[in-house]
């Protein structure tokens, strides 16, 4: 039964992709090569859509891949939707189960010096990984490395539209601390459309 297989394959993706949504991509590549549920060009479409819609990228990828797979087998949109839901549930199941277990363990060992030591180190590393993710977004959003390497002109290095918007948002956030980040996200989307950011 394809739906059990979908659940199983995406359960494995969720179980082995440690450290965020982008970590799921190599596993999806593996599925594409091994099971031919979707092609590699479809996979790059999926990545593009998953990044341009809200929500965790890994979850979005699972929904999309599950739909594609079930649709390609049954040629039926209802089967596709069911496939998307089953794959999504498969992907999130390991995360939910593991966290429930970790919480139990933490309650038991919250005074343990090894647990405390590990958390002390993990917090700093976690901060580094978040900063790294931030730098990654900045690299693709605020800088134009292709144009710079071609011309060598410093003026080509920065994408001025996004840079100016980022600075404005940063300043506004410092002044108006009460404004919800969601407001800034929606406003930034509108500005992007009005001024043709892409």
């Amino acid at each position, binding site marked *: 039964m394809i739906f059990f297989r979908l659940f199983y394959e995406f359960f494995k993706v*969720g*179980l082995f*992709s*440690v450290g965020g*949504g982008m*970590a799921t991509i190599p596993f999806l590549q593996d599925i594409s090569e091994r099971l031919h549920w979707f092609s590699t060009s479809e996979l790059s*479409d999926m990545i593009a*859509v998953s990044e*341009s*819609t*809200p*929500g*965790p990228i*890994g*979850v*979005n990828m699972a*929904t*999309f891949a599950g*739909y594609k797979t079930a649709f390609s087998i049954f040629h039926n949109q209802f089967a596709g939707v069911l496939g*998307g839901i089953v794959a*999504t549930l498969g*992907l*999130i199941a*390991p*995360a939910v189960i593991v*966290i*429930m277990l*970790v919480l139990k363990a933490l309650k038991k060992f919250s005074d343990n*010096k090894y647990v*405390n*030591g*590990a*958390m*002390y*180190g*993990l917090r*700093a*590393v*976690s*901060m*580094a990984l*978040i900063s*790294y*993710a*931030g730098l990654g*977004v*900045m690299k693709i*959003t*605020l800088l134009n490395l292709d144009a710079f390497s071609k011309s060598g002109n410093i003026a080509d290095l920065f994408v001025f539209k996004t*840079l100016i*918007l*980022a600075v404005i948002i940063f300043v506004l*956030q410092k002044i108006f601390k009460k404004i919800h980040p*969601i407001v800034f*996200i929606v406003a*930034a*989307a509108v500005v*992007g459309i009005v001024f043709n*950011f*892409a």
Partner: protein
Amino acid sequence: MKKVSLIELFLTFMKIGAFSFGGGYAMLPILSKELTEKKGWTSDRELTDYYAIGQCTPGVIAVNVSTFVGNKLRGFLGGIVATFGMIFIPTVLLLVIAIFLTKFADNAYVKDALAGIQACVCVLIVNAVIKMWKNSVVDKSTFCLFLVSLLLCVSTWFLPFSFSPVIIVIAGALAGILIKKAKSGGKKK
């Protein structure tokens, strides 16, 4: 603290999920605003811990954090409800796109909007780091740990190969245990 209803839990995480562009890390500022500042359901310190654990456990970080917060507020069922709330809008949206708009990501308006959103996400992540900094980087040892981890990550941009962040996370946990041990050992003498 008043007992949180499961519906409120679902709706709050639904809102967070609907606006988290750019993955689990970009979600942090929204979580902090919504859960710490507005609802008082958790502290920024706890959020930092959830992220730290989410990095080294299997699965999508956003799901890990939702399960954590939900479970803390309403136990097992709360964890499930928060997680489903978080993924609800993204999953429905993705299914709609998969059925009707396979060329969604190529649309000019979508591309423009996304470029604007990404500029905003840069700022949100910077602010999240500034906010969480004092909970995580508490002394010289943790600052070194932060700097070395960040440099290792950034080095993958210039190297022909890449390594999994999992290695850095595990090394960080071990380093934490050793530093704590060395410090408490020093005090006894």
